[in-house]
C-alpha cells in the first residue's frame, strides 16, 4: 500500500514544489473537499472522477434479532471514478 506521505511527496516532486509546500497544498485540498462537500457540492476532477456527497434520509432498519432501529439522516462522501480512469485501469490489466 502506498502511504499518503509517499504519494504527496512524489506529487510535490513531480509538480516542482518542495515537500513542505506539497503537504500544505494537500492539506488545502482536503480542507477544500471538506468545506464544499459539507455544503453538498460535488468536486469534479477531469480525467479522474467526482467526489459526491450523498445524503440519506432517516429510515428504519430491521435488525436480525427482530428489533427495529431508526437510523438518522446522514451524509456520506463517495467517489465516482471517471470513465477515462476506468478505461486506463482496464487497459493496464
Amino acid at each position, binding site marked *: *500500500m*502506498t502511504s*499518503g506521505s509517499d*504519494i504527496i511527496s512524489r506529487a510535490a516532486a513531480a509538480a*516542482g514544489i518542495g515537500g513542505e509546500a506539497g503537504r500544505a497544498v494537500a492539506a488545502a*485540498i482536503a480542507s*477544500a473537499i*471538506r468545506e464544499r462537500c459539507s455544503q453538498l457540492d460535488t468536486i469534479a476532477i477531469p480525467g479522474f472522477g467526482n467526489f459526491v456527497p450523498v445524503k440519506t434520509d432517516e429510515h428504519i432498519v430491521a435488525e436480525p434479532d427482530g428489533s427495529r432501529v431508526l437510523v438518522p439522516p446522514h*451524509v456520506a*462522501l463517495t467517489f465516482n471514478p471517471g470513465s477515462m480512469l476506468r478505461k486506463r485501469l482496464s487497459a493496464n490489466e
Partner: protein
Amino acid sequence: MNSTVTLPELSAIVARAAATDSDTATRFILELVAQIESALAAGGPAEVDGIGVFARDAVSGRVTFTPDAGLADAVNAPFSLFEPVVLPQSAPQDVLDDDRDATVAAVADSVASEAEDEVERAESVATADASDAAEACAADSDTAVDDEAAAPEPAPEAEPAAHTDDTAPSAATEPSAPHYYDDEYESTGGGATLLPWLTALLGIIIGMGAGYWIGTRYGAPAVVVTQTVQATDCISENAAAATPQDSDAADTLRVVISAPEAEQAPKQPAKAAEPVYDTVSTSRFLTTIARDHYGRKDYWVFIYEANTDILRHPNRIPPGTRVVVPDLGDHAALDAATRARARELAREIYNRYDM
C-alpha cells in the same frame, strides 16, 4: 449547495488556502491524481492523508473510496447530533411504515419513558417521605399518648404509597405509548365513521323542515278547498238524505242554495252593461284581442269600428292604446253572415288608407 466545483475553482480555493498560485495548485492536483492512478494500476490501494484511501476491487476491478475519518465526520457534521434509536417492539406497524410517524413515535416513547422515570422518582420520594412521616408519627404516638388521633393518619398515607410503589413496576412493564396510539387511531376511525351518518341525519332533518315549511306555506289553500268541497258534499248529502224524509228541510235547503243564485242573476246584466277595455301592446294586437274575446281574430274590425275616434291606420296603432271591446251579442257567434260582414269591413277600412 448541490453545485459542482470544477478544477479551476478547486485550484483557486487551494491556492488561496495554501498561499500559492493557481497554476501550482493545478499542477499539484493533477500530479496527485496521476500518482493515485499509478498506485491503483499497480494493484495496490493509495492512501492520501486527510482525504482517504482509494482501492480497487480484486474481483470486479471497481475503484472504491474510503474517506478519511476526519473528512467523513466533517461532511456529516450537520447530522452528527443524531443517533440511531431502537424502536419498541409494540409500536404499530402502520406507525413504523412512515418515517415521520416513526420519528414522532420514537420521540413520544422517549418522552413517555422520561415521564415515567419522573413519576417513579416522585413516587419513590413520596414513599420515602411518607415512610419517614409514618415513622415520626409512630414515634410521636409512642412518646405522646394524648395525640392518638394523629397516629391513624400516617398509616393510610403510607399504605397508598406502598400500594403505588407495588403497582409502579407493573405499570412500567406495560407500555403506555402503544395504548395511546391505539386509542388515538380508534377515536379517529370512529369519528371518520360517524361523520357521514351525522351528515346524512342533518340533511334529513333539514329536508323535513323545508318540506314542512313548504307544505304549510303553499299547501294550505289546497287543504281549505278540500274542506270546502267536503262541506259542500256534506250539505248535498244532508239535503239528499233529508229529501225523502223531511220535505220541509229540503225546501229550506233549496231556498238557501237558490238564494245566492237569485242574488247573482240580476247582477249579470249589470256586468254585461259595463264596457270592456283592453290595451294594445307590442305583442297584443287587435287580432289578438279579437281572438281572446270573440274566438276569431278576423273580428278585429268590430273593435276597430268601436274605436274609430282614437284609431287611425289599423296597422299603426301605438302600443299602450286602450280600446273598447264591444259586446257583439249572441249573433256574433260563428254565423257566416258575421264573418262575411267582418271581411267586408276589413276591406273598407284598408281602402280608407290606401287612397
